[in-house]
């Protein structure tokens, strides 16, 4: 998450040009071109940061430098980042490419329709960036006004008993299941990105979690077959994870196993002498990316 360009000391100050006072504590900690969640919020932010960092006109050809830096940034992100976050950055990559193409056009000679179209595309991108920056700037006014008004106290007192009876009937349209849906919304954690990716790939299975199950099963009986260990596992990923955890536990000499014939029944026995839950916490670290 933190590509460090420590050779460029000026980079940090560009990380939130419009509201530097807001995230002051983070800014002190951030050295170099660090994008932290507190002051970073999306591709246009990043694009603006990159551009303001080089104090460049985005219509100039030196965009290639920004593009290179962006690609380096993407590389630094590594595979651990959310797919949706990475894909959002692709928007920026495409934007930068468009701008680069437009920037490489010969200036001044607008002869063919194609180059006109490209220049228009560049203007449009420029307009979008300016628009984004305008909203970013005006959001500071929103923040100030909301904070000021937060401090004000308006008269808001419960009606006297004698008047309460006169209150008009409440209009109620929710069914019990509507109400439950509402509750789900209300309990949902606030402002956590919710691009649903579950339909794209199966949820990741934790080897450590599965190992915990395996350990519990092994310790609860004299011997257990692998068939029993994976009985009831709903998906292949869990079977794989339980098998890997058996191998890991074997490496720690926590279990012994015997198999009387090739492809035959695999019987496992718990044999650990010094087993602690801390060992479980580091189990399968090799499989962490």
């Amino acid at each position, binding site marked *: 998450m933190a590509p460090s360009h420590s050779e460029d000391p000026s980079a940090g100050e560009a990380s939130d040009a419009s509201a530097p006072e807001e995230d002051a504590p983070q800014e002190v900690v951030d050295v170099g071109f660090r994008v932290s969640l507190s002051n970073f919020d999306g591709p246009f932010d990043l694009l603006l940061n990159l551009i303001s960092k080089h104090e460049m006109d985005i219509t100039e050809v030196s965009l290639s430098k920004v593009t290179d830096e962006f690609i380096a940034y993407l590389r630094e992100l590594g595979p651990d980042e959310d797919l949706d976050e990475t894909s959002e950055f692709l928007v920026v990559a495409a934007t930068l490419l468009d701008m680069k193409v437009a920037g490489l056009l010969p200036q001044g000679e607008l002869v063919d329709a194609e180059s006109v179209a490209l220049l228009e595309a560049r203007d449009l991108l420029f307009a979008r960036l300016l628009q984004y920056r305008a909203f970013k700037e005006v959001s500071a006014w929103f923040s100030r006004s909301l904070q000021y008004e937060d401090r004000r106290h308006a008269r808001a*007192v*419960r009606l006297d008993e004698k008047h309460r009876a006169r209150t008009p009937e409440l209009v109620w349209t929710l069914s019990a299941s509507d109400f*439950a849906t509402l509750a789900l919304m*209300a*309990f949902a954690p606030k402002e956590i990105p919710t691009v649903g990716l579950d339909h794209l790939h199966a949820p990741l299975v934790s080897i450590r979690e599965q190992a915990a199950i395996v350990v519990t099963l092994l310790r609860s009986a004299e011997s257990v077959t692998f068939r029993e260990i994976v009985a009831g596992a709903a998906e292949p990923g869990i079977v794989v994870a339980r098998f890997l955890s058996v191998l890991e536990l074997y490496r720690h000499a926590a279990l012994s196993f015997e198999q009387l014939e090739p492809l035959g029944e695999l019987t496992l026995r718990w044999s650990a002498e010094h087993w602690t839950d801390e060992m479980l916490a580091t189990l399968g670290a090799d499989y962490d990316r």
Partner: protein
Amino acid sequence: MTDDTVTDADVTDAAGTGAAATAELPITEKLEAILLIIDEPHSLVSLAAAVGAPVPAVRQAIESLVDEYDGRGQGPRRGFELREVGGGWRLYVREDYDDLVAEFIGGQAPARLSQAALETLSVIAYKQPVTRSQVASIRAVNVDSVVRTLLGRGLITELFQDSETGAINYGTTDLLLQNLGINSLDELPPISPLLDDGADGFDERTAR
């Protein structure tokens, strides 16, 4: 809500610290600021602690406000009055206008709960008994006025006061069940796993 247990020592202390910034402003104005936002009558002692002034000065200020609101001061009479009820002081609509107020309330359009009120109600329904600050931390927003609305609508009720913190615990009423067309809270559709699985970390968050 009226705290009658404040001693003179507390009052002196309050005067010496928090209220220092407004010390030079008139007691009457400070009292009016407090009186504007309180729901229930507050005793002289409690008001004295609030404005950081000695009880006798507060008594005198209250008396002059009563006079002013009743038109015995320099300005005109007000449409509200300051009355002592059950040992505490509070603003009331002047009785002359009770009919006007009743008519105004009766003439309001049929009420519909806002999205914010409905969400707050659902949180209370699933987490009861629950305090206002717990609800506020789940909703990540101040819920005071919404809770007041729901109380006024009879959809929630004050269940009991926490013996340690003094915080009031709220729960839903039969009226809510009727509106939802169910007979008991057990018939609320389950909304796990958010509630059950996450309960531990959740409670930690809300308990703060």
